[in-house]
């Protein structure tokens, strides 16, 4: 049995400690905003936060979450409403298929947490390891800058 906080709630799971955090979050804990993209830490679709730092959940074991605080896309919501950053993504219509966006938003949130007023070049650098295939990059950049404004 392993315990951790998920989006502020205490969770105890009987999944093995070497289980992949991604699958525990999606399949056991129904965190839809966590996506399998590559399983190789190359694309960022599976990004979540552990104690405020972004990790690639596809290459993270459940044991790494033990006793710590895990945040997923749903966990960014405030009182059941989209957070400022999520709303900025909605306002900018910063999606085509949207599959990569949970990872994008988690990474962007971590950026804003450590640098509330990033430049465009800061945003590009922070998101450079997150892949988007639809070509929504320019809107994503605008959304992050809008949330920072």
């Amino acid at each position: 049995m392993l315990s951790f906080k998920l989006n502020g709630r205490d969770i105890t799971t009987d999944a093995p400690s070497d289980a992949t955090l991604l699958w525990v979050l999606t399949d056991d804990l129904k965190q839809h905003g966590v996506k399998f993209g590559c399983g190789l830490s190359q694309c960022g679709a599976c990004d979540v936060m552990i104690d405020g730092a972004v990790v690639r959940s596809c290459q993270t074991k459940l044991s790494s979450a033990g006793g710590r605080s895990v945040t997923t896309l749903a966990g960014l919501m405030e009182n059941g409403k989209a957070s400022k950053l999520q709303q900025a993504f909605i306002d900018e219509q910063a999606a085509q298929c949207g599959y990569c966006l949970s990872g994008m938003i988690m990474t962007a949130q971590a950026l804003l947490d450590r640098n509330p007023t990033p430049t465009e070049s800061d945003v590009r650098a922070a998101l450079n390891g997150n892949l988007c295939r639809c070509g929504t990059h320019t809107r994503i950049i605008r959304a992050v800058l809008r949330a920072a404004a």
Partner: protein
Amino acid sequence: MNAPFDMNRRQILRTTGFLTLTFAMPSNLFAQEVQSPEGVGISGGPGLPTDLKKNPMLSSWLRINSDGTVTLLIGKVELGQGNRTAIAQVCAEELGVNFSRLQIIAGDTKLCPDEGVTSGSTSMPDGATAVQYASAEARGILLGLAATKLGQPAETMKVKDGTITAGNGKTVTYWDLVVGKALDVKATGNPKRENPSDYTIVGTSMPRVDIPAKMTGGEIFIQDMHPEGVVYGMVARPPNYRSKLKSIDLGPIEKMPGVIKVVRNGSFLGVIAKTKDEAMAASAALGKAGKWDVPNDMIGNAAIYDWLLKAPSSPNVIHTQKRTSSGTPAKTVEATYRRPYVMHGSIGASAAIAQLGTDGVMTIHTHSQSVWQTAEAIAKMLKVDNDKVRCIHTQGSGCYGHNMADDAAADAALLAAAVPGMPVKLQYTRAQEHQWEPYSSAMVIKIKAGVDNDGNVLDWETDVWSTSHATRPGGNAGNLLSAQYLDPPFKQPTPRDIPGPNFGSGRNAIPLYEFPGKIVTTHFVSEMPIRVSSTRSLGAHPNIFALESFIDELARNANVDPLEYRLRFLKDERARAVLMKAADLFGWSGYKRKPNYGRGIAFARYKNYAALTAVAMEIRVTPRNGQVQVLRVAVADDSGQVVNPNGLANQMEGAVIQSLSWTLKEEVKFSDSAILSSDWASYPILTFQEVPKIDVALINQPGMPFLGTGEAGQGPTAAAVANAIYDAVGVRLYTLPLTPDRVKEAMNAKK
């Protein structure tokens, strides 16, 4: 919380008392099919719009529900292109209801009108036009009912959000007119449509209906679904395409933790387990346990262009225009262009969920673009009747054509058939997606032109070599990857080029420029050394890269500005307008030259009859290493009547960025024995730091047909890059991708 497996069906049944265009009307209104007096289709041909002709019953498209909602059923599916929202806008506009009343169900083979494949930028021209006519016709019928009920002439009535007001002020709502008995009415194709100048919903940037859930962790993708009792399926692929499984001991795999079932059929291997981790471990072990016969006879990516030119092919003259004027060209210019295999490269590996019910029906949630034909192919693979397979479209990661979505649906079904009753969820590994998807074919294009002393083209000749752009399931099990490995195997049908001059390898090969003599020939190679199929824009990306690079070269040879040279031969007003608009937006005329900076422009009318697009861009080349940085892009697009400007711009921005990625970076690498592009490290794509600023100008054409936009930007973008490189450093590149090594090599060769 477990999601209901049958999500769409629950949704539709939730609204109790829905009525299928339930009208009390004189029987003569629907007793016979009323013939449309004249053509209304996109092509201007006779009869109904294409998709309405295939599904003429209005009840296939619309249900006016007694609770004040409207259900819109469509066969075109949401792939991230925003068609769900745009088509709904058209419906709300023509039906006369607020957008928020619409419930949309798309791509369920049991419930929705069969609109074929969501491909070829046809969601708007085919799908939205059908919905436009169906909705306008339904509104007319409702007005007729109101006229009877209120005893007032229909002509005097106005509709606002489903409330009809007669000339005398009396009102009745759509929902009041709904009564208890369903009656189906066939579309006439001749409804009174709203005047485009009165549009209040069409032409507005309605926020996309699917976006909020995607931004907040809602349940919207197949990957998010967890039906009660779900189990996890994985397959183990052979070492390469033509490998055969000689033997395997399944015993140790069956004993692995969590394994429910191991499936072997011929060379097809799969496993079903209780958790995803267990399924992945077991499938990895399964792949290693097999003793395979592995032929090492693949061509290798370096040799593919020579192979294409020498392989048996069938020449087909798709366009010929004999020059009537006399005169011998002063000079002949020739060039050969090459484009490697590129992949769809979805960020999410393809997925599906399948369940064999007690009624013998295999229900599959799939992100396929072709739910009907894929369902039929799967039925044949499973050797069951077509009505025993139901596909329900559920959103997945963007596919950009025929990727692994259909194979995932087929594989989930093969595994679900082995564990009746259990919902089997399958998602491929990254390597399975990268190495097995049907790529966009490598192509070679040769262009030759005879020009006069002023550099004007007299004779133009294009030859195109390509393998297939169309191996979609199409109701044939042999096009499903795993079906080819079963015992006995389903044989893949020999592919044919899509008929017509603009539909496959020849898409956009014919120049729209008005040259005196033109001949364009495709050389279709039916053999497929590498698995290929439809990928966003089909042959248009390489063909426009070639055509618009060549035009640029001719302009330079003639010492004429490339924009001016194009306009010299382009008479169509809409074509000229997009070129000039893109040039204006870019600042073409006032452009200040700087060393190693360059500008390029290119134009195409997609498929030579759909959206008109021009792309101008500025790039910078770093001479030391040949690196190309695209700095800014200006796009002008005329897609006919604009339904959702923001959505249209979004599509165009995406097309530009994706095409830049193909054009600058992408090439599927393969050896004699394996596909080497197995992940994002071995197949890199454009990243945030490489993406330019993009401005899009839309030219709206109120009242004109919707032309579709999704694939229109790919080709012009590719050529604009090559033209800008020439402008910057004076070297012309003919082989994609335009990598730093190639730029550097060409610069060295020029010295």
